[in-house]
């Protein structure tokens, strides 16, 4: 690169001469870098396997999540019941597979959605400033001080009988506020950075500035939060189920399986270990893929240097 540093200015070159290939766009650069990261492949392939297993794991299996095998109650893993059975003869393998479907859906919707909400609302407040900022922060603080559970109880008559989809919406709505405040603080310092000022002086629209400059520069936080949020949402759903919201028996989720299996963890470990292991693997795989993504959007990290 040395020849370009202080080279003499070339005379203005006539137009339309040979041009190199089109320079890669940001998205292509990010994907190219992701593809070179082994962590990304390990993470996504593991997730893919888990998803496929959740979808087709019961295809060649003799039991389903609600079937009861009265001949074998409280047995450990056998050839017949791969993950063992519970005290009424329910098949843990079948329950885990079915529970996993629900939990994956909850986790992968709630985690990213709440991070995105946090990102856009926080960036908007931080970038616009003034009255908008005050109104949004006031709203965030209001949601923070409101006890989320009471609101759910208040809304109970409305959502009674509604599916666990409502739980998903609820979880997403009540888990973005703290991150939004962090993003807002970061944005208001980004707003005074020269590159944002420069964009404003060029006449770039506010929405474009937020999309092109603000969100990518806070994306590390968003990605971390989205990946951690996947695990957190799966577990929070359990709490809600305990209070009678969310996934109700005979329906199962990983969360309900775990909470019912915890008590038996030492005496009948199969009730607890299998669902727990699946959860840990899911969260780990998500983190791996998220970590790789974070490095890919941050050009100063890793192997992109020459």
């Amino acid at each position, binding site marked *: *690169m*040395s*020849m*370009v*540093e*202080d*080279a*003499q*200015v*070339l*005379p*203005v*070159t006539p*137009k*339309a001469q040979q*041009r*190199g290939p*089109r*320079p*890669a*766009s*940001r998205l292509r*650069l990010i994907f190219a870098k992701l593809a070179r990261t082994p962590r990304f492949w390990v993470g996504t392939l593991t997730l893919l396997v888990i998803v496929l297993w959740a979808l087709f794991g019961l295809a060649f299996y003799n039991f389903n999540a609600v079937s009861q095998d009265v001949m074998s109650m409280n047995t450990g893993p056998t050839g017949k019941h791969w993950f063992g059975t519970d005290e009424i003869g329910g098949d843990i393998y079948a329950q885990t597979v079915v529970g996993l479907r629900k939990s994956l859906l909850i986790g992968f919707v709630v985690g990213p959605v709440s991070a995105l909400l946090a990102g856009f609302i926080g960036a908007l407040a931080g970038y616009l400033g003034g009255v908008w900022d005050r109104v949004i922060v006031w709203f965030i603080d209001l949601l923070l001080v409101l006890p989320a559970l009471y609101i759910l109880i208040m809304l109970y008559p409305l959502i009674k009988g509604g599916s666990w989809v409502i739980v998903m919406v609820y979880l997403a709505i009540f888990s973005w506020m703290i991150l939004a405040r962090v993003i807002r603080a970061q944005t208001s310092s980004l707003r005074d*950075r*020269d*590159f944002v*000022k*420069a*964009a404003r*002086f*060029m*006449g*770039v*629209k506010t929405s*474009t500035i937020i999309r*092109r*400059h603000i969100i*990518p*520069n806070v*994306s590390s936080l968003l990605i971390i939060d989205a990946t951690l949020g996947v695990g957190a949402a799966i577990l929070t759903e359990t709490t809600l189920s305990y209070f009678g919201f969310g996934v109700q028996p005979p329906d199962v989720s990983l969360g309900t399986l775990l909470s019912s299996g915890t008590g038996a963890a030492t005496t009948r470990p199969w009730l607890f270990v299998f669902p727990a292991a699946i959860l840990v693997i899911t969260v780990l795989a998500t983190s791996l893929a998220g970590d790789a993504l974070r490095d890919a*959007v*941050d*050009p*100063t990290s890793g192997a*992109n*240097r*020459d």
Partner: protein
Amino acid sequence: MTEPLTITGKRVPAVTPVLEVDNLSVTFAQAGNEVKAVRGVSYHVNPGEFLGIVGESGSGKSVSSMAVMGLLPSSARIGGSVRFQGRSLLECSDAELSRIRGKDISMIFQDPLSALTPVYTVGHQIAEGLLLHDKNLSRQAAAARAVELLKLVGIPSPERRAEAFPHEFSGGMRQRAMIAIAIANDPKLIIADEPTTALDVTIQAQILEVMQEAKEITGAAVVLITHDLGVVAGNADRIAVMYAGRLVETGGVDQVFHAPAMPYTIGLLRSMPSMASSQTRLVPLEGRPPSLAALPPGCPFAPRCPLVIDACREAEPALTGTEEDPTHQAACIRSSEITSGKLTRSEVFPRPVPLIEGTPAGTDGREVLSLTGLVRHFPLLKGAVFKRQIGTVRAVDGVSFELGSGQTLGLVGESGCGKSTTIMEILELAKPQDGQIRVNGVDVADLSKRDRLKMRRDIQVVFQDPMASIDPRLPIHDVIAEPLTVHGVSKKDQQRKVSEMMELVGLDPEMASRYPHEFSGGQRQRIGIARALVTDPKILVLDEPVSALDVSIQAGVINLLKDLQLQLGLSYVFVAHDLAVVHHIADHVAVMYLGRIVEYGTSDDVFSRPRHPYTQALISAVPIPDPALERTRVRVLLDGDLPSPTDNIPGCNFRSRCPLYQLLPDQQRLRCQDEDPSLRTVDKTSVACHYAEHDALIDTMAER
């Protein structure tokens, strides 16, 4: 002063040095490779001596002094020896070092705001240093001594100021307080790491004076680390030039400045814009310093050296004395050819000839930008819930100027004088609070939203810090193309235009899909310039475009700006605090003080015969990289700092610091107190001073 005596070429040390650094090396282990930040540096400092260490960023100058103080993180591997008064510092434990640091060796840092604790008063922090090293001292005695020290470093009403917190001090006063802490225990050695880099030239001149005084009072030796050759020229006895972690030249200040023996030093000296040379081209030092992680064999300067021969790439030359004077050492195998006069300095780095001579292409000197009585006041609010106005910050207070096409207007002044606010107001292209902004003859207040967007094509900006002004997460093709996205240019045209601009500013278009961090500071500033030029603007607003760059890179960017002006017929508004740079590039100069223009005229008139006392002080505060000139110069020093722009000073707002005002008889002073001077023409320049004709008075006073 205390130079070692030289008897028939043999060095007989007159005194034992305070500090002896021998073959010092510092290595940082990083993932995969090692960064050799300092590679075998040896120097000594005699008692009472002033040593200047000069180098660009990344040359290892700060790291080597941190190693001397034992302040490097434990991950650094340090080799060689550092002996302070005969005692080896590298073998001392941290507790032992703490007894020496702050007592016998003290340090002054670059940023005095982060070097002082915000939650304690300044007096308390000075007393703390005293009490730590003298257990017998009472608190009262320490506090009294702190006040004494503050007085010594020239802080007005020190009793009151000792009770103040660091944030209540201005930058210059904080640095004075740091010096007070540094000299509190009568140190033997003061290490100052870029002590004036964060300060204005006027304050820099004051601080350098205080440092000289502090040195005389304590008799301490001083090691001043800086990137600015001008700063060391007038103050240092000896200087050492560092490059790529090694000393490449060392010697008495006159020898090094007048007869440099190393091509790098020659290049540095020749690339500096000077107040004397105005419209000639600067000499760029091409290339950039090598990466310290993977140094190729041979002289590290070889890739940038115009004198390079094959032998240079084989082995790294040692620092050896020149034939005439063994104390003048240079690390260059061809240094004897340089000192003997076989190779002259202008042959080593010839001055490049401009590509196009004469006036810019396609310009007719027609007015492209004019400000009339521009005002920008900010209300000063207090209170959290119910805000009430307690004052007004007069950031810009009636500024008028005109800019002709193809011309450059230099806007100069201390930080806080309103020059940045002025250009931000221009760039907003909105109706100002008061006054008028006209671009290409159109009043921007009357613009519709659509016309305003269209006008943004014509006026673009280049910011000071190339790190901050480019989005780190955007590939540079997208960075440069960004202004085009606003105006609905097709992707294909964007790409063509970007490649064209990259070529124009001297970047390889092949690098368009790289990220900004892969470029050096100078290259990044070129990216910033390319982005500004991509819409084919008429006016470029340049906000301190070279002040964040190293001297050797600066020259290349200034030359580029001048060439682009000639090629494209651009008009520049050039904001800078470095007067030498402004002198070099500007056709007209406006000097700002507290939101007003106090002097306005052509660059040659203002710089050769400044009429306003403030302009005189500014110009005389600029350090000149020539020790002989610098020592004999007559300085017009300003007292104190820039007053707060919230103060409403009746009459002339400069009179609180004016050197001329102090010399005037009482009845003439009355006019300064009552009447606000407006710009009037004296000779060829416009000056806002009632007594601009008396300017010679200052010179005669200063000489006394």
